[in-house]
């Protein structure tokens, strides 16, 4: 039963419990207080809330009695608790299935308790996470119901994509028909060869020549056709796969970051590479051939019936048994190989892991353990592979035997007929050739469902990406041309998982040209705030306004062009320094690039490289130091002269000397721009106009460095803690680098000092 129907069922009780008030929201929950599954309704009106379980009112409460509610996220579920005038109490318990909805409920009740107008985010309560037909859960982040999805619709979509190459596919089909005719004709020629030439004394040599000539001709035709067919089918399927890959890649680029981060990189790569490959194999080797083979199978079956109805029964009767056995064996083989593949996977994974972490293995002296562990995994792989091969080598001859069995029956009865004179030798040969053909196809047919499923799953996975909702521009109401760079955070809340808020009710405004330093413990929400400003994620509640307009009302591309971003990990793509500089602004001139590099203090070191701005960097290119990479990424950020600059730990992984250079560069480039900077060193942020001190997802303090120190709050205590740690760092670690680098007031963010030591 759908959630709506269940809720309607109890609407009478709910309505009474809410004192007849209009219901603001109602939703199902699934765990009773004693920890068993149940069906209950949780409903809220403006002044009341109630819980109805199995048709019985369990709890009703006036919201004015509630100070606040909070949601406890536990293993396998959660509990909504209320702080009431009479103390704390549990309102409702639910499994993870409902936790997102209850997160929103929690916020709504808190709004109501504070007397505010509640913000009801319809999306959180949408029923689109279960299939409306069967009520089963959709696959996460999709609207694919594994139970109800129309299997053929997937192939229909595939055909749609193949449409431009219709001509090629029709040609292929025709070519297959030529091969089929040859297949049917060859046994007829054999019959004539035996009956009209070999079996007759003094047969004419001309007949022999004609028949052998025709046989040769059919072979040549079939050879030529097969060559042409292969060329065309490879062309057709490659074109299709190219299209599919392009579609997916294009789609991925347009997808919100949250989608890509949620999927594993490996999974997405798999979809672009392997799944499309599998679709290609299916179309190239299976699909067209299947159409043809099925037709041919029927045609030959009809011919055998026409030739000798009784004897054809001998061919057909054992067929279902053979098909059943083959299918059963195949299933078994598949599950065995699946297991083998998993074991191999385990071995490869461990191998990659250990080789990547070989330093750790050696440092802790665990080589012997690793050797033993590997021996065991390799042994497991050996055992399962041996067992599987033994099975396959035993079972395949049996399959062959089953296949050939019909042919023995035909020979037995057919031979008898030849002996009694009611059938010629040639006819018997022709008949048994057809019979052999039918049986040999059986094995191929028995594999069809598997190929079919594999292609279906792959197609489904590919289309799942293709049909995913893109991050679309909303109504574009604001123009980025006139943007100046003032920001307002209007009650912004956000969580990567909506039930775990990272930012809570952020209310703040930033003037144009102001430099804001974001400060706080790690995990306080600094990077998240920046992610929201960069529009990598959208707030769950509230708005971020740029010059008075919601940032989502700007055209995506135009908005991004306003931003210059320097990230902590200064990722450079393979290519020249120039390519990397121009990545953010393809239209930048060479002069622009040099100016940017100069401002970023990168020009000097670039000119020391033998290839200057054409120096190849990236994975296999010139090894730049952390500081050099960072300065290039600063230059990249400013090539397009952005209005807003975002610096996420821009000086995190460099030594103090380099930091000075970067500091100097940043001072030059931040002038006149609105800047949001996260940095864990005070020196970076002392120029900031204001500091936002984030604590547990909220802005706890704002002000200049001096003001905050005077306030003696979180910021001051953070600072003290870091001074202590910095001093400790000097005494513990005597390396020159550390001594030089750490001066007592340098750190701002507690616990992040280790980042430095790694580089």
């Amino acid at each position, binding site marked *: 039963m759908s959630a709506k129907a269940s809720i309607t069922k109890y609407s009478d009780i709910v309505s009474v419990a809410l004192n007849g008030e209009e219901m603001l929201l109602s939703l199902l929950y699934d*765990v009773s*207080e004693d*920890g*068993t*599954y*149940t069906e209950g309704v949780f409903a809220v009106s403006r002044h009341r809330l109630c819980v109805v379980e199995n048709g019985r009112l369990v709890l009703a409460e006036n919201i004015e009695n509630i100070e606040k509610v*909070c949601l406890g996220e*536990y*293993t*396998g*579920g959660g*509990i909504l*608790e209320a*702080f009431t005038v009479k*103390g*704390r*109490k*549990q309102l409702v*318990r639910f*499994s*993870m*299935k409902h*936790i997102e909805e209850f997160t929103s409920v929690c916020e709504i009740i808190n709004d109501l308790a504070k007397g505010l107008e509640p913000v009801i985010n319809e999306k959180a309560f949408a029923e689109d996470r279960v299939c409306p037909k069967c009520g*089963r*859960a*959709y*696959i*996460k982040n999709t609207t*694919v119901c*594994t*139970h109800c*999805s129309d299997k053929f619709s997937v192939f229909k979509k595939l055909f749609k994509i193949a449409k431009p190459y219709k001509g090629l596919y029709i040609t292929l089909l025709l070519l297959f028909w030529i091969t089929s005719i040859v297949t049917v004709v060859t046994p007829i020629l054999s019959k004539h060869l035996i009956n009209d030439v070999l079996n007759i004394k003094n047969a004419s040599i001309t007949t022999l020549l004609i028949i052998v000539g025709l046989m040769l001709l059919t072979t040549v035709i079939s050879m030529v056709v097969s060559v042409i067919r292969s060329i065309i089918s490879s062309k057709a399927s490659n074109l299709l796969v190219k299209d599919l890959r392009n579609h997916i890649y294009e789609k991925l680029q347009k997808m919100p970051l949250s989608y890509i981060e949620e999927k594993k990189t490996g999974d997405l790569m798999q979809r672009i590479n392997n799944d499309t490959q599998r679709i290609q194999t299916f179309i190239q080797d299976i699909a067209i051939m299947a159409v043809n083979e099925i037709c041919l199978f029927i045609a030959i079956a009809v011919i055998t019936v026409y030739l000798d109805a009784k004897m054809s029964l001998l061919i057909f009767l054992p067929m279902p048994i053979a098909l059943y056995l083959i299918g059963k064996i195949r299933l078994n083989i598949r*599950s065995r190989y*699946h*297991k083998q593949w*998993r074991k191999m996977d385990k071995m490869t994974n461990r191998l990659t892991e250990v080789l990547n972490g070989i330093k750790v293995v050696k440092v802790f002296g665990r080589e012997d353990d690793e050797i033993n562990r590997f021996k065991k995994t390799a042994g497991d792989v050996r055992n399962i592979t041996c067992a599987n091969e033994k099975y396959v080598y035993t079972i395949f001859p049996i399959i062959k035997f089953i296949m050939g069995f019909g042919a023995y029956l035909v020979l037995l009865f057919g031979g008898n007929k030849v002996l009694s004179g009611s059938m010629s030798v040639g006819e018997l040969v022709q008949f048994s050739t057809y019979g052999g053909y039918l049986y040999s196809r059986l094995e191929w047919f028995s594999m069809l469902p598997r190929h079919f499923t594999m292609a*279906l*799953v792959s197609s*489904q996975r590919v289309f799942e990406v293709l049909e995913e909702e893109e991050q679309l521009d909303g109504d574009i109401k604001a123009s980025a041309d006139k943007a100046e760079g003032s920001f307002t955070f209007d009650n912004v809340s956000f969580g990567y998982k909506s039930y775990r808020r990272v930012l809570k009710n952020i209310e703040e405004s930033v003037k144009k040209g102001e430099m804001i330093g974001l400060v706080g413990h790690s995990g306080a929400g600094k990077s998240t705030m920046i992610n929201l400003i960069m529009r990598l994620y959208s707030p769950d509640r509230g708005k971020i306004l740029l010059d008075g307009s919601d940032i989502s009302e700007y055209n995506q591309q135009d908005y991004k062009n306003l931003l210059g971003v320097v990230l902590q990990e200064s990722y450079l793509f393979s290519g020249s320094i120039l390519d990397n500089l121009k990545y953010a602004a393809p239209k930048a001139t060479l002069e622009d690039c040099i100016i940017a590099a100069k401002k970023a203090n990168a020009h000097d070191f670039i000119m020391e490289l033998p290839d200057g701005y054409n120096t190849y960097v990236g994975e296999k290119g010139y090894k730049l130091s952390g500081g050099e990479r960072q300065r290039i990424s600063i230059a990249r950020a400013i090539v397009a002269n952005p209005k807003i600059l975002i610096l996420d730990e821009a000086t995190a992984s460099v030594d103090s000397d380099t930091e000075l250079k970067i500091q100097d560069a940043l001072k030059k480039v931040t002038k006149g721009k609105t800047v949001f900077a996260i940095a864990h060193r005070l020196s970076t942020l002392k120029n900031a106009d204001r500091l936002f001190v984030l604590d*547990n997802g909220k802005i706890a303090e704002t002000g200049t460095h001096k003001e905050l120190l005077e306030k003696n709050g979180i910021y001051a205590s953070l600072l003290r803690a870091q001074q202590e740690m910095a001093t400790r760092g000097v005494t513990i670690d005597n390396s020159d680098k550390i001594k030089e680098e750490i001066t007592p007031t340098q750190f701002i963010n507690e616990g992040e000092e280790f980042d430095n030591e790694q580089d």
Partner: protein
Amino acid sequence: MENILDFISPSDTLFYETKSGLLCLKYKGEDIGRVSVLRMFPFMYEEEYLCIKSENYSREDKEKEIGILRSLAEIPENQLEMVKRELAKRYFVPEITSVEKVSEEFGHTMWEVTTTAGVREFTVTDMSSNVRNMGNNRIMLIDVYGNRYYIPDITKVDDKALKILEIWI
């Protein structure tokens, strides 16, 4: 190694419940209020190595660890039940007692099971990461929403389920 762990002495603890069944603690005479009890090794010990934290929501600051309770067996009978109830709330991992129906499609498995918490239908996707081997033939299934289901002995589940699961463990 210097022992810096705060093990809670049972003689210092007095667990009590509020009227609506929330677990609270008086520790060394101080009323801590609402506490949470966390398993430190949930896959190994259910009633040993329990971390006790004060959970004061009203102050919005981070949870404070009171200490570690070495074993539930150490605390008096009347308090034992309360802590067990709290654990059952915090770790809602129903045990699958029988598999009524299981099917596999598109690499997703659909389950209809009877658990210690009642009858339930759920779907598991991405089997390689959502079928967890806890050792000693114990398996944890995690469904699309993140709910967990515990199978205490994989060798005792029915054949069809075993066939599906054994590939992933």
